[in-house]
């Protein structure tokens, strides 16, 4: 954007505002990470969350990962995320490509089936009843299949295939390649950025699965994924099985010590932090061109 050189005061105010915004987002994460690696002594001295590094230990992580509900939850979450993302991606990429040829047979009808679901839904209770009737109560697939298809994601992929990749696809059709072959060796290699972004969207969605757990397996604590464990043992402060600890006195003597609680928070946060720079790199290309310009 063209501008005259900003005044010192304007520059200062701008910098201050943006600085505060950035701090509001990063400070909680900093505190949580630091507390999770602090010794019980330093947590006591700080009276709770630790702001200044005082004594570092990785005990909380060793405790968490050597057994007990958190490790179990981590395995469940990893499984749900991997399997779910794989299913979602296969289904979505196929569907998006299947709809990318604008005059193919039945294309408008099929597209309509998809788009209607963006505006009309049966609602919570009927969905719950359908999944229960199919025997999904207490099953892992109930965390995956009901939300496996995101029409929005399919439309983003499709708009890429019928826009940017259209010429290559047409050329391959001229050469007589089959649709499956085109998808595999023309479309997928040329749409890596958008594929990566959509994969991450799905993966983050599965990683964050929470409500479906509450709906379909609220009492089976050994099947809980990480988010639900975070909710029960940190948010609600319920007793963590196998974690009888001296972290706090009195009535709460069985809640996990603060460092362990914060370690659970870090565990749910970590993958998002790790994939984020990668996601950011692809965003400008994949997301913006896909979703906003259509």
């Amino acid at each position, binding site marked *: *954007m063209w*501008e005259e050189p900003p005044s010192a005061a304007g520059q200062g105010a701008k910098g201050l505002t943006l600085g505060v*915004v950035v701090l*509001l*987002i*990063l400070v*909680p*994460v900093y*505190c949580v990470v630091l507390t999770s690696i602090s010794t019980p002594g330093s947590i006591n001295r700080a*009276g*709770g*969350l630790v702001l200044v590094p005082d004594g570092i230990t990785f005990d909380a992580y060793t405790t968490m990962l050597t057994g007990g509900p958190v490790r179990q939850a981590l395995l469940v979450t990893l499984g749900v995320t991997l399997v779910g993302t794989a299913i979602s991606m296969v*289904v979505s990429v196929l*569907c998006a*490509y*299947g*709809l990318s040829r604008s*005059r193919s*047979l039945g*294309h408008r009808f*099929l597209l309509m*089936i*998809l788009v209607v*679901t*963006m505006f009309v*839904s049966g*609602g919570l*209770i*009927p*969905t*719950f*009843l*359908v*999944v229960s*009737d199919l025997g999904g109560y207490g099953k892992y697939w109930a965390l995956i*299949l*009901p939300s*496996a298809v995101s029409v929005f994601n*399919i*439309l983003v992929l499709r*708009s890429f295939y019928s826009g940017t990749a259209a010429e290559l696809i047409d050329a391959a059709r*001229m050469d007589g390649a089959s*649709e499956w072959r085109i*998808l595999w060796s023309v479309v997928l290699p040329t749409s890596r950025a958008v594929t990566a972004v959509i994969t991450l969207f799905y993966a*983050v969605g599965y*990683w*964050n699965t929470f*409500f479906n757990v509450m709906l379909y397996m609220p009492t089976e604590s050994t099947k809980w994924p990480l*988010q639900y464990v*975070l909710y029960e043992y*940190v*948010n*609600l402060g319920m007793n963590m099985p196998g974690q009888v600890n001296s972290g706090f006195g009195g009535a709460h003597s069985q809640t996990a010590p603060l460092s362990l609680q914060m370690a659970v928070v870090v565990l*749910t*946060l970590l993958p*998002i932090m790790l994939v984020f720079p990668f996601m950011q790199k692809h965003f400008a290309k994949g997301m*913006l061109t896909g*979703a906003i*310009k*259509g």
Partner: protein
Amino acid sequence: MASTVATDGKEHRNGEEGADGEPPVEPPPARRLTWRIRLRRDKSLILMTLPAVALLVVFNYLPMVGTLTAFQYYDPLDGVRHSEWAGLDNFRQLFGDPLFWHALENTLYISAVQLVLFFPIPILLALLLNSVLNQRIRSVIQAITFLPHFYSWVLVVTLFQQMIGGAGLLNQFLRQHDMGTWDFMTNPHTFVLLVTSQVVWKDAGWGIIVFLAALSAIDQNLYEAAAADGAGRWRRMWHITLPGMRGIIVLMLVLRLGNALSVGFEQMLIQRFAVGHDAADVLDTFAYYYGIGTQNYSYGAAAGIFKSVISLLLIWGANTLAHRFGEDGLYRK
């Protein structure tokens, strides 16, 4: 979301005109191919869409049929097919239920507060960020601000709890300096401000993206020309920047109004325990607790239908209004 749909409609119109770019079929047929030939040509494409369509049919369309339970005395043992019909009894009961009206009132109240306090923030941040000339700093700040969008609601609430909750960082500080305590997380009177600040914290950065894209589409020459004519910073913003963003602002408003009855379901659910149902019950949680919690499925489904119908009306109304003001809204007229 909606703009994808919008462009979609446009594409059809263009697409209908001719069969350019398709492999020649011999002998050259009349302009329209018979459906038999098209079926043979497109059968693998159709096949590819089937898994997604099947999942949507089972998990989206079957539940739509399942809304019939709202007109029944649904009994899980009898299923939808054999349950006794109730006519409009569930709705009559619903509309006579003070808890339902309270949930609706909460929903509208929270929604209105969020519209006023949340909606402008991404626009303002986008303007601010756009005026940062250093490309590198700008993209780093942007990346940081939209990071929380990918956090789950449990995580967001937990982080808020650790910062400003009863045992959180803020109160830790207040206690150490003998300034009493201040528990923002369990106070029902300030709950609406709490949930709004959580939404701002989580999603303001995400909202920036759309507005920044709109800003980058404005012709830069306009600014130089206006400046040469002596227009100051604020006049340029008023006469160039804001008109350039009007379309996208209206679109976001339409979407926001269409979603007015969905105010953070998980967010409410997670915090309902801490602040009590009086403050945290919205339409979605009402349907959940009175539908699944008490196993009165028909009752919950009726509340769900009420919500869907009003939402559709809202999105249609907002879209019509946008067209009336000469904007695109969800699709181009």
